[in-house]
């Protein structure tokens, strides 16, 4: 019989098989994981100035919703996302303006301004924000997102950020 220190033919074949199998597995396996995770890793950051029209068109002290859409390419098609911004002029001046996103900071439902109660109301989990966008009641962890604004030649613009 063969010396126990020698590698047997059978063992050699097994080692070679496991070795080659592992190499093939790795060559396929690692790209396969990258392949699946790829769209999650390639995050498209976006920011753009969105014109909301003449500032004069917005009434004083009465938040008005402005809706807009952004289009981007996801995989093999264009995705159109809708966004909403509440424009609130708290004074006559060009800088006396605040624009809040209508996206609830809890789980991204859309909030609605209700004049009777002076509250941004989120219907999903009864979240409430006051006129300044601060949380008054309910589960939202943060105040409403406030857009950066700019008024040029009487036209109001906001800086859209992909959140």
């Amino acid at each position, binding site marked *: 019989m063969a010396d126990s220190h020698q590698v047997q033919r059978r063992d050699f074949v097994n080692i070679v098989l496991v070795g080659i199998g592992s190499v093939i597995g790795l060559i396929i396996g690692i*790209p*396969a994981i*990258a*392949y699946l995770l790829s769209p999650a*890793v390639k995050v498209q950051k976006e920011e753009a100035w969105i014109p909301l029209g003449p500032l004069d068109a917005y009434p004083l002290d009465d938040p008005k919703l402005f809706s807009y859409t952004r289009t981007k390419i996801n*995989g*093999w*098609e264009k995705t159109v996302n809708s966004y909403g911004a509440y424009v609130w002029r708290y004074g006559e001046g060009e800088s006396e303006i605040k624009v809040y996103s209508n996206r609830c900071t809890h789980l991204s439902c859309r909030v609605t301004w209700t004049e009777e109660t002076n509250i941004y109301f989120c219907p999903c989990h009864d979240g409430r924000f006051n006129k300044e966008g601060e949380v008054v009641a309910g589960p939202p962890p943060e105040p409403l997102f406030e857009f950066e604004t700019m008024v040029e030649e009487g036209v109001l613009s906001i800086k859209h950020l992909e959140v």
Partner: protein
Amino acid sequence: MTARVVSWLDERLGLTSIYNLVFDRKVPKVNWWFTLGSASLFLFIMQGVTGVFLSVYYVPDPSKAYDSIQYIMTGVTFGWLIRGIHHWGATLMVIFVFIHMLRTFFMGAYKFPREITWLTGVILLLATLGMGFTGYLLPWNQRAYWATTVGTAIAGTAPVIGDFILRVLRGGNDLSAVTLARFFSVHIWFLPVVIIGLISVHMYLIIRLGISSVPKEEEG
């Protein structure tokens, strides 16, 4: 520790006996021609795995199919590799299965008691060609479109029922979204199920009957 885990599992699952039955079979002294079946099986598994991965991004619709494949090729990390393996694996599999059939034929390995192994093998060869035919349409490019137009028209030349066969294949008179959808379905469900079932029978018979030996040269 590992040994204990293995023996614990083995006692309950009987892994060793399966291993011995499948891999430690007694085989006659054979040559490299006898590896074609294993090679075909390996390629089929590769096609299955890469195919499952491709289905993550592929959309079987005329307005999306081409774009979704462009996305796989250029937008997805290693998409070109997964599709490349599936593409070349398909060609290789047809070649390997075909040579496997030739080897079986010329060495007379289809004879008693292996007739059923041969018959399942014949259907497996046809199913492999069917996979090639249905998969060829899926990229929905000019080559795919016209190859399938011609391929289904060939089936349409059969006497009497030809026209009916053509309409069954295309899902109507025209090559359309219906054709693409049914080719996709046949490619990823019907044929794989048939192939897996037949491979199971094929391999059961190989394990049960053992493989044939290399025929001896006749004297005189």
